[in-house]
């Protein structure tokens, strides 16, 4: 169960990846597998930074194949999954809140050769009952919340849930419905960490919409944000009005939601649909994108980051000697650029995530079940830090 490389083959098709949000010490990712035929699993990936080793633990998730996974911000043992359930020739995607069994960590690592070891099963806390609303696209935790509030996006409904009685009971506190022509269906969404967690952004088809959770009403709508389907969204963790989106037009766009007519910036580096976009949690110039062209691209978007553009040097420091001036020439303001393109995947990459514990580390997951962990290049890291 020890892998000295930076990647691990989970040997199962997988789309769902999340960092364990409440875990701030260990570098840990959760992967949900997709299989119609076998019992699905939650793979817990631990990365040992010092020894460059990946450890994997497995928990059984026998409810169905996992389309989306998300960890509670307050309790590292609690997570939600969106899974599809086939009953009577009907496929329905449901959502549920789970608790990992407390013993999973106690040396219960699955080794590739040892399949006899029966993995433990997740403990179901409660269902987010969606029979009235249809398939769930994703479940969002309240960012930096107490792990009591959730949003699920089901077809064209936004459902705000309150978890009660130690998360064993979920109750809808308010709902909003997207009305319009045709069959509207949310593809994804993101709960904004700003504004006291009162805003939500959702994507349906080519449009991005903002919602106020207090009144459950739409506050903005970027029609035709992308030429084709919008696949993912992420909020800039430091700039409250900035939002990144990606989609089937191979583009990544940056929006200032106060001026929605034109994107602030547009990247077109991938050669196929972009499925996932993530801001680094601490340094918002670092941006990660994963695409079905099997590539992961790490970009450095200095010009629209919250950190000062270029290198601010006090005049007093400079005026003394020429040496520092020459030094300054060497440190020309960083341009928006691609830092690296990672081509280790051989199938479509559907998810990328930054680690919560180490801001310089990220994981990417491709459909064939390969998870790759990479670091921000050292040179850039020092450049940002120093």
């Amino acid at each position, binding site marked *: 169960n020890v892998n000295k490389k930076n990647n691990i083959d989970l040997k199962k098709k997988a789309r769902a990846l999340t960092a364990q949000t409440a875990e701030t010490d260990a570098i840990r990712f959760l992967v949900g597998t997709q299989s119609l035929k076998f019992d699905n699993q939650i793979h817990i990936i631990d990365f040992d930074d010092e020894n460059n080793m990946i450890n994997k633990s497995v928990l059984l998730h026998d409810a169905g194949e996992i389309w989306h996974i998300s960890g509670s911000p307050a309790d590292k043992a609690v997570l939600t999954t969106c899974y599809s359930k086939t009953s009577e020739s009907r496929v329905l995607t449901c959502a549920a809140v789970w608790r990992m069994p407390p013993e999973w960590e106690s040396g219960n690592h699955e080794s590739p050769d040892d399949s006899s070891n029966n993995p433990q099963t997740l403990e179901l806390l409660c269902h987010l009952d969606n029979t009235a609303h249809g398939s769930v696209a994703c479940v969002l935790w309240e960012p930096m919340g107490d792990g009591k509030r959730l949003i699920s996006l089901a077809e064209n409904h936004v459902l705000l849930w309150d978890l009660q009685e130690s998360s064993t009971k979920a109750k809808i506190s308010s709902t909003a419905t997207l009305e319009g022509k045709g069959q509207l269906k949310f593809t994804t969404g993101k709960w904004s960490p700003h504004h006291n967690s009162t805003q939500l952004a959702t994507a349906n088809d080519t449009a991005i919409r903002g919602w106020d959770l207090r009144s459950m009403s739409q506050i903005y709508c970027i029609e035709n944000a992308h030429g084709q389907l919008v696949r993912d969204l992420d909020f800039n963790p430091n700039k409250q009005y900035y939002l990144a989106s990606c989609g089937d037009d191979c583009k990544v766009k940056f929006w200032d939601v106060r001026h929605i007519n034109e994107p602030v910036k547009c990247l077109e580096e991938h050669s*196929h649909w972009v499925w996932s976009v993530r801001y680094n949690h601490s340094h918002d110039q670092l941006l990660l994108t994963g695409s079905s062209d099997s590539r992961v691209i790490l970009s450095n978007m200095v010009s629209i980051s919250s950190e000062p553009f270029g290198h601010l040097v006090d005049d007093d420091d400079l005026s003394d000697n020429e040496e520092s001036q020459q030094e300054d020439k060497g440190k020309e303001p960083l341009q928006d650029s691609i830092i690296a393109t990672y081509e280790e995947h051989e199938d479509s990459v559907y998810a990328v995530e930054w680690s919560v514990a180490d801001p310089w580390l990220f994981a990417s997951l491709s459909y064939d079940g390969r998870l790759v962990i990479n670091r921000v290049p050292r040179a850039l890291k020092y450049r940002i830090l120093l």
Partner: protein
Amino acid sequence: MSSATTPPDSDPSQRRRVHSMLKHYYGLNEEGKVTEQAESLDPCDINGPHFDPEVYLNKLRMECSLGELMDHESCMVKQIRSLDSDMQTLVYENYNKFISATDTIRKMKNDFKKMEDEMDCLSANMAAITEFSAHISGTLQDQHAQITKLSGVHTLLRKLQFLFELPARLNKCLELQAYAQAVSAHRRARCVLQQYSHMPSFRGIQDDCHVIMEQLAQQLRQKFRDGGSSAKDLSECVELLLQLDEPAEELCDKFLSHAHSSTTNPFLSPTAGTDILEFIDRGCNEFVSSLCLVIASYQELFINRPQEGELASKNIPEMANGKLHVFVDTLAARYFSLVERRIQEEKGVSDNSLLVRALDRFHRRLQAISKLLPGSAVPSQGTEIVVRAARERIKQYLSALQTFYHDSLTDVRQALAAPRHKDATPSLPELLTSLSNFILNQLKSVLASVHLFTAKDITFSNKPYFKGEFCSQGVREGLVVSFIKFICQSSRQYCESAGDRGGSTPPALLLLLSRLCLDYETSTISYILTLTDEQFLVQHHTPVTPVTALCAEAREAAQKLLNHYVKVQGLIISQMLRKSVETRDWVNTIEPRNVRAVMKRVVEDTTSIDVQVGLLYEEGVRKAHSSDSSKRTFSVYSSSRQQIRYAPSYTPSAPMDTNLLSNIHKLFSERIDIFSPVEFNKVSVLTGIIKISLKTFLECVRLRTFGRYGLQQIQVDCHYLQMYLWRFVSDENLVHFLLDEIVGSAAHRCLDPSPMEQSVIEVICERG
């Protein structure tokens, strides 16, 4: 005297002989000497000095017969006789003359004696006259002085009379409006009056004169101010006023202000509706010529007039010249602003010759001013205006070209959108040819129009701007290069705008434009630029855009357009496939009996795209494949690869194999870039489109869950695509690989993965 007295003789030869003999006798005639010498040698010459009678006689006797001798003898006798008588006559004549001469001398002696007496008497008389004359002049001396004095007094009195009469005379002149007379009269009197102004009577006159002259000046000024009078009258006025010591400066001002109103009044009311040539004509005829007239008369009056008296000291010309310049400048400024306004209104680009002719006339007429008024800035300002107009014109032409380009594209768009009657609508190559011909012709005609600016008969064409900058910066860079850049630019815009709004540009137009840009890159650009350089003899003083840079830009645009075309077409097919996958309930579908209609549609569309691209682009190269490829690859595809790859994966017991095999497969196949740039040929374009479509198909399949028959339907569909799509692409393995992936993914997403028999699939597909 002797010859004169020779009596006339009937025989001239005889007389001469006598003459000569006489001459010989007196020995003084030079003529005689000559004859003497000529004759002297013959002793037989009876008249010669060396005559020897003996020799003569002997000669005669020897030569002559008796008869002859007899004749000779009688002749000789006759001659002797006549000679004797001649001699007698001569002697007689001479004697008579001598006698008469003696008588004359005697008579003269008597006369001279009488004359001497008379002369004595005369000298005595003369002495008496001299004495008298001296006496008289002594007495008359006093009276003469007196008369001189009297005549002096007389003239003075006459002058005084003139002075006293002056006021009256001036008044009269004033009444008769004979200003010139009055002024000249006053001028004559002025100095005297000035000198004697201390005397009361003169003072009175002076005052009177002053008053009158003041009045006169007033009248003159009035006349001057009224302005109704002709230029000639006016100049007379000015002249008189100047003589009246009127301050020249003020006069200049007045003259100019009067001229100002007269020159500008008729012209400065712009009339709409006249064409530019008419307008400029009017401007030239009314404004410029009257301005020239003013300048000329002004110069006549104030600047070129001979300086005399006190006027010289005031340095009028310099002051007047300054004023004139200011005057001309302000007027010209108004005129120019008017002209410029009018030129700016000239927006129609249909006929440039009118404007050029107007500008030429405008410029030509201004040269007159430069001749009249050498240091003036007006002509150069006029040239500036012409230059600005030319610049503006180029800009207008550029925008006209751009509009034309857009319009042509709109036409092409309509032609493409029009319902297709097989014979009525032109095909793509025809559209391309006509479009590129339209553009080229339009560009050529614009070049011809612009060329008018540099025609030889246009006065401003030899200005440095029109020789250099106009050609290189203006026409070449500002017009031609900008236009080409604009074409590339607008082509690129088609790519950008269409991407976000879901392909508002018809794909055929993209394809056509891409070919157009490519043609530009290969030939048209260099042709156009060479044409321009030749027509305008562009000398590159300033750096100009090189042909290669433009070509690179055009190629880039062509590439972008073609990429975009692939993207749009791929998207159209992708959308069909996506809809077909997303809207179907794959779990509860029935057993496949047919290939789904959408797949047929995909193949049809791909075929028509293939035809469309083939009209404009070459075939391109494929990877070599054996003949009858469809059958052969099909069997490989179905029997060996597919079966080996997918069959084990359907059994839950061996999940490892599928991964292993698929990974091994991927290891050996190259990574496929879906939206990658394409080459300028048909195969590459089609490969790009099919790649995009199939990848979409794959991704959509992965998002769905399939029932048993769902999987089988996908199998059938993929087989159908396999049968038809391989022929379009450069590397058929690519199609195989993607279709394998699709079927593989569908199998993986299948709840009950039991694949259909290959033979059944084939039967269904062959049925169509």
